[in-house]
């Protein structure tokens, strides 16, 4: 038996629906159709009345989730694509994110964002929104990179009393497989050393973890040991694990698929520069997508986002510094 990243997400939702009567799923095409990516396949049939098709109204979808949370429910919202959450942005950042701070009433909602680029998807079905949401106080932002994390972190997201932006990567949906579901997991907010090394640290998350691990593998055959840190949750950011790694290696490269301006990689570098400047043997580096919308053609798309090739080049440059 092998379980895909997508199947892990479906199974986590199935388990949440089974174990917690407060959980329901609401989003476009999530009902009988099973979702644009089939992340809710068969769930409407198995849980009648609890997996609801929504109109194309992202603001109303997310706004209603906040109301349901006030009344004690735990809605899981599927945005069909992360990009479309822009239409519900107001409800996320001004309603969901502020509710607990303003009123002491928790807002336990999960907003699933099918995120990131896949070949041929173009500017409006490829974006990574974690940076935008991480900017706002009151939100937890998860970016699982493995099948195991997709499963355990989604379950944890449902259990958390705060709004969680769950950035699941579309490229990983079918590309990633595991033999079985995890029985235990690191908690949210903790980064993971995905591969140990002593010569430099790559801090990354989501799909870029796998590009980075491929680079680490390639470098290992040349005798260079790269440590790869998977952030798992970008907010809160596990600064301790990052700092400890940089303390071991003295070199830092941050890799993210989202646009370069500001963002998770910038935040990691800012923290290391502020708190751990003395640990660095070379200026910290970062690699992001290019500062343009995400292109449609595979040739352009492959050059737009970081890949094992561009990460390897950045890593070599950093090791020479």
């Amino acid at each position, binding site marked *: 038996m092998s379980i895909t990243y997508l199947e892990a997400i479906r199974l986590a939702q199935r388990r949440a629906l089974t174990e917690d009567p407060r959980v329901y799923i609401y989003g476009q095409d999530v009902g009988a159709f099973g979702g644009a990516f089939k992340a809710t396949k068969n769930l409407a049939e198995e849980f009648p009345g609890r997996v609801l098709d929504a109109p194309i109204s992202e*603001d*109303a979808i997310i706004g209603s*989730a906040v*109301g349901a949370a006030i009344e004690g429910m735990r809605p899981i919202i599927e945005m069909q694509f992360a990009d479309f959450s822009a239409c519900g942005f107001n409800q996320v950042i*001004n*309603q969901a994110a*502020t509710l607990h701070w303003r009123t002491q009433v928790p807002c336990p909602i999960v907003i699933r964002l099918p995120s990131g680029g896949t070949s041929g998807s173009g500017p409006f079905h490829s974006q990574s929104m974690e940076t935008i949401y991480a900017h706002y106080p009151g939100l937890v932002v998860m970016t699982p990179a493995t099948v195991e994390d997709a499963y355990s972190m989604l379950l944890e997201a449902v259990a958390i009393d*705060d709004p969680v932006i769950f950035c699941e990567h579309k490229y990983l949906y079918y590309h990633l497989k595991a033999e079985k579901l995890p029985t235990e997991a690191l908690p949210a907010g903790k980064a993971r050393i995905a591969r140990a090394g002593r010569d430099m640290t790559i801090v990354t998350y989501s799909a870029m973890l796998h590009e980075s691990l491929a680079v680490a593998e390639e470098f290992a055959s040349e005798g260079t040991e790269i440590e790869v840190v998977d952030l798992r949750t970008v907010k809160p950011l596990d600064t301790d694990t990052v700092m400890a790694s940089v303390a071991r290696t003295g070199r830092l490269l941050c890799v993210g698929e989202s646009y370069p301006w500001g963002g998770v990689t910038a935040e990691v570098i800012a923290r290391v520069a502020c708190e751990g400047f003395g640990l660095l043997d070379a200026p910290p580096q970062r690699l992001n997508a290019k500062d343009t919308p995400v292109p449609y053609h595979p040739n352009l798309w492959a050059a737009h986002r970081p890949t094992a090739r561009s990460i390897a080049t950045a890593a070599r440059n950093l090791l020479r510094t």
Partner: protein
Amino acid sequence: MVETVARTSITDEAAAFRELYIKAYRWMVLARVLDEKFASLYRAGKMHGGVFLGKGQEALSVSIGISLQKSDIFAPLIRDSGGRLAFGEPVLDAVRTYLGSVLGPMRGRDGNVHRGRPREGLLPMISHLGAMIPVVNGTLIARRFKGIKDSVGATCIGEGATSTGAFHEALNQAAIEKLPLVLVVANNQYAYSTPSSRQFVCRSLVEKAAGYGVTGQAVEGTDLTECLQVVGAAVQRARTGGGPQLIVARLLRLCGHGEHDDAQYVDAKLKQSPLGRDCLTVAEEQLRQQGWAQATDLAAWRAAAVEQVEDTVAKVQREPAPDPYQETWHALQTSHLRELHDEL
């Protein structure tokens, strides 16, 4: 025999309406007095932020609050002092939030009209217009999940908010889910300074109801009798399975957008028109014409309202302000997921 019973019940009904009317009028007076106090505190420089009055909208607003039950949901907007009071919000909550008392429901973290007690069905508005409608929908969806059948959710907007996407999305959502939503639009002719001619061109906003497949009802917002009847009936229809109700009231905002605004842009002709009548004066005339109250009653009710507001303000002015050193500065409920920026 039959005739006697019928007559008695008509008399009972009339007596009940008289009682409701007087109760509503007294909430209107309390709201007006409270608003006037906030305005005078604003002019005295005692307010931290803006002050937003419901002057001219009390009849409509109170009719909503008074038609709801304690167990219902209410998401008022900025001109709903009256509706809030009638729904059960204590004067103390209003004063504490305006003055920023740490003992208030918002603890100084949010102020003025941004107050509520979500656990008690009173939702605290955010500033983005139309944004509370889907939240009310969500509370009603949740209650349906929980098997609570006879709840109603009411919320208020102005005509300006009908131009938002949130209004459209949420009213449509409520219609699809057949929710017991009562959406009250106070067409007070101006959204801040923008006249309704720059906001919409349909003859009446109530025409929109047909487009969403919901019941629509227009009401003269200056007339308490009509407001009580129309809003009361809509709440009842929603409660008994009639689905979403859109109410559109015609009235005029008798103040600026906020107290910082002298509203010189309001058309003088509108002020002179029936639309510009003060609903409080209209209600007083009605009370006296019907013989439901004498001038001495009106004076006594107003004096009682003034005393209640003055006492509350005096009490709150002695209460502690929030202390930045006591503030936790965390936006998350989950303690282990809080980032410790102070350590950076």
